[in-house]
């Protein structure tokens, strides 16, 4: 059995037909991890034993007719999601030894279905980064070319799916952290509508922007995963009460009756010609499938990055205050005063990028600066939300690149954080507005690096994303293409 290209829906059918057991499937995946992990480095913590035990339970569940659609499916979990009894580090030294005594709501949901967790995946520390180069436990490599970044912050989540180390994974997206690595690694990634998936148990980076979502090998799998993750959670006040639909139902070939909007601001200066070429081709495919194409405008897009880099660090500066050296975090045992305990524990525990953002956010919230920064940024955010409201009067789904360029070489941008911030310009607006966004593989650069197409839809219209994504996938015929990892 080749697990490197296996989709959830194919595995589900094979399991149902009794062609294999979950234990066999899981063992295959664990073997694959053994083989490629030294090169890819997608995991922070592996849970092989636990995975086999869960797989055995899943087989038992299935044999008595229990278990959900994800029963027995080996998944990887971004290390920012709390897993009961399994170390959860958020890629940070400060949480090097933190073992949560509780599961995130999404983990409860996966467990109740009988899903299998093969390990905790690499990420930028506290999800702050775009190349997964800010991880206290090493940088994962892009399976398509090991010299390149796999994107971030959910780098391990994208790399592991692309490398065949799990059938699908969970990531989190605050400013593009699911869509961008999905694009760079040639997998499907969805950031659901804000509030669609519970944030309970997700270590907060920026609470008003964070959202958990799946990374998968194809669009159908993304729908299956979304089914398993979404829904109202009484433990998360910001989780939506909107009805949680079956996303796999009614996904059809054909785009008749749907209008796709091409936002001019997403094709502006700075967009690499090879990315644009791939995306334009994708648009043509959707047009061939029957979609109407329309040029549209989201005029405040250019202010997104600036607003984001006020709001996200401001929230982060407060969210990360609990990592103070007093309870479950790293503590400097030599500190001899309270202030020193805080200063030393946090200085040693946090990496540079996290410190940079805590400083930015603390400054932006300081008395005397609040109105000029945080309040102004919130106003910009309102304008961006208005942009989306207006544009979705004209079209059903927005189509654009995910990033202006393909993945860059590991280390290439480490001395230039600003250029990394700017590379998120096309994914940030969806987080600010709370709308769902998706990255679907659309083609390759000249050097063979994957390039994804970004789709964005109105709040709770994930189904439109999935339908457009499915049509692109079917029209392009590149699904199943594998990186040449040995």
């Amino acid at each position: 059995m080749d697990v490197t290209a296996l989709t959830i829906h194919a595995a589900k059918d094979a399991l149902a037909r009794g062609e294999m057991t979950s234990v066999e499937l899981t063992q295959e995946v664990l073997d694959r991890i053994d083989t490629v992990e030294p090169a890819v480095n997608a995991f922070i913590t592996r849970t092989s034993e636990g995975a086999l035990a869960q797989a055995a339970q899943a087989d038992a569940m299935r044999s008595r007719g229990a278990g959900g659609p994800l029963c027995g499916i080996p998944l990887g979990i971004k290390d920012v999601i709390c897993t009961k009894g399994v170390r959860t580090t958020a890629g940070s030294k400060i949480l090097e030894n933190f073992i949560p005594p509780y599961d995130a709501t999404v983990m409860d949901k996966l467990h109740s279905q009988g899903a299998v967790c093969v390990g905790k995946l690499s990420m930028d520390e506290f999800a702050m980064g775009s190349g997964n180069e800010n991880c206290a436990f090493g940088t994962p490599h892009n399976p398509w070319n090991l010299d390149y970044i796999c994107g971030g912050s959910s780098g391990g989540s994208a790399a592991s799916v692309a490398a065949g180390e799990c059938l699908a994974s969970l990531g989190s997206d605050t400013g593009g952290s699911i869509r961008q690595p999905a694009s760079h690694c040639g997998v499907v990634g969805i950031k659901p509508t804000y509030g669609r998936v519970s944030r309970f148990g997700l270590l907060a980076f920026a609470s008003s922007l964070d959202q958990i979502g799946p990374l998968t090998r194809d669009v159908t799998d993304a729908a299956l995963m979304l089914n398993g993750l979404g829904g109202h959670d009484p433990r998360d006040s910001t989780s939506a009460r909107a009805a949680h639909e079956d996303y796999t139902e009614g996904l059809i070939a054909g785009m008749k009756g749907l209008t796709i909007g091409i936002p001019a601001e997403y094709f502006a200066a700075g967009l690499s010609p090879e990315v644009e070429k791939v995306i334009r081709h994708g648009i043509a495919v959707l047009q061939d499938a029957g979609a109407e194409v329309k040029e549209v405008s989201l005029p405040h897009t250019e202010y997104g990055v600036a607003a984001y880099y006020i709001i996200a660090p401001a929230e982060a500066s407060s969210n990360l205050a609990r990592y103070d050296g007093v309870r479950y975090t790293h503590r400097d045992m030599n500190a001899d005063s309270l202030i020193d305990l805080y200063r030393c524990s946090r200085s040693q525990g946090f990496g540079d990028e996290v410190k940079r953002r805590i400083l930015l956010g603390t400054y932006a919230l300081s008395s005397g600066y609040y109105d000029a920064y945080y309040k102004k940024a919130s106003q910009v955010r309102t304008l961006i939300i208005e942009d989306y409201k207006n544009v979705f009067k004209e079209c059903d789904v927005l189509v654009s690149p995910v990033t202006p360029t393909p993945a860059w070489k590991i280390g290439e941008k480490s001395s230039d954080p600003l250029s990394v911030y700017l590379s998120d310009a096309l994914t940030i607006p969806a987080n600010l507005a709370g709308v769902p966004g998706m990255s679907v593989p659309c083609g390759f650069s000249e050097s063979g690096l994957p390039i994804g197409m970004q789709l964005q839809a109105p709040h709770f219209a994930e189904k439109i994303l999935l339908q457009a994504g499915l049509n692109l996938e079917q029209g392009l015929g590149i699904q199943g293409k594998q990186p040449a990892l040995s």
Partner: protein
Amino acid sequence: MEFETVIGLEIHAQMKTNSKIFCSCTTAFGNPPNTNTCPICLGMPGVLPVLNKEVVESAIALGLATNCQITQWNQFARKNYFYPDLPKGYQISQFDLPICEHGHVNITSGGNERRIGITRIHMEEDAGKLVHDDREPKSYVDLNRAGTPLLEIVSEPDIRSPEEAAAYLRKLHAVVTYLDICDGNMQEGSFRCDANISLRPVGQKELGTRTELKNMNSFRNVQKALEFEIRRQRDLLLDGEAVIQQTLLWDPDRQVTSAMRGKEEAHDYRYFPDPDLVPVVIDDAWIARVRQNLPELPDAKLARFINELGLGEEEASILTSERPLADYFEAALAHYPNGKKLGNWILTELMRELKGAEGMDIATFPVQPVELARLMGMIDKGTISGKIAKTVFEEMIRSGKDADTIVKEKNLVQNSDAGEILQLVQDILVNNPEQVADFKGGKTKLMGFFVGQLMKVSKGKANPQMANELFSQELNK
């Protein structure tokens, strides 16, 4: 130079809800350290707060009871600062949109009625507690209290004296206990207050430099600390020195205030809306529902006691000062019709017993209201005299027995047999010829002596009214 005192109080009232404000942990007091905790109130990674609706209802009730406007669109804010008793590194509170604003209460102090403005009331979570080891340089963190719901009540700087401050504090204490939203226990810290105080020359409009007083855990301490601080500030000002704006701790043992050390001064709390909580919208229907369920409040009860029961203003204000006392009074009143007599008994006899007994309060008072009512009825019916009733009352407290039993067991029934009493009266007159002569000579005060003699021989059981009448009758023969 004459100075005017300007005081504003910040009261923190702990809500009596069963669970904490953002998680389902109990708010019970006195359990072993860190047992009333969960990942949420411990501030563990990834957990989220969910608002306890009961806290909102308590806040609306208090707002209505103190004539506040209720804010329709409420938001929680984060107050950011580092301290080991604050597990998240921020306190969830309210900032620019508190739930209640622009209220007031009326107080009476030194015979004057005054209106004290309430700037705002907001909802927030309490922090935990630090316990410092006396023998080693070690500190322990107890997070049982972390996440307990608080209402912070901020007054306008309308208070002009320590007496007014105490009266205001008593009024708020009465209101929260009447509403049954706070147990009002100042020792355990479930009702506590800080004071801002400054002096200014009489006639000056601008406020003087203020200091903040903390750690005053009784009405008495609040008044004493403010009195001390007024003297301290006045002395400084008279010497031409400046008052320094700072936080001072009241030391109840040494009876002085001293500058607070340890916590950093002048924080920048970096308030911003808490993105983990959605706005709380309070519509008119909700407010109406809470209003409908409001109990009778202290001011209304006071007026009723004066107007309908004929109590004096002072008696009525003491009886209504605390809800348990008012409840006791009214429970007894349901079984005994004379409010004036009953009130008088409670304010003299019952209060004296309470003051004399350590650790006893009205809520745990051993004589049930209905028992007291029965005792009062026995006096009215002439079964026992008022004097004997006091002995019976003491015995009821001590033994827990009811009045009937005690009176029967001790044979204390009042003697109202005119023949028997007349016999005793005549004996006393015969045995005290000198006093009889003096009485007839105009020393009418000697009536007390004769009645006293009678009580002595009857062991207090002779009906005193009859005794008076019979002595008069016999002496005037």
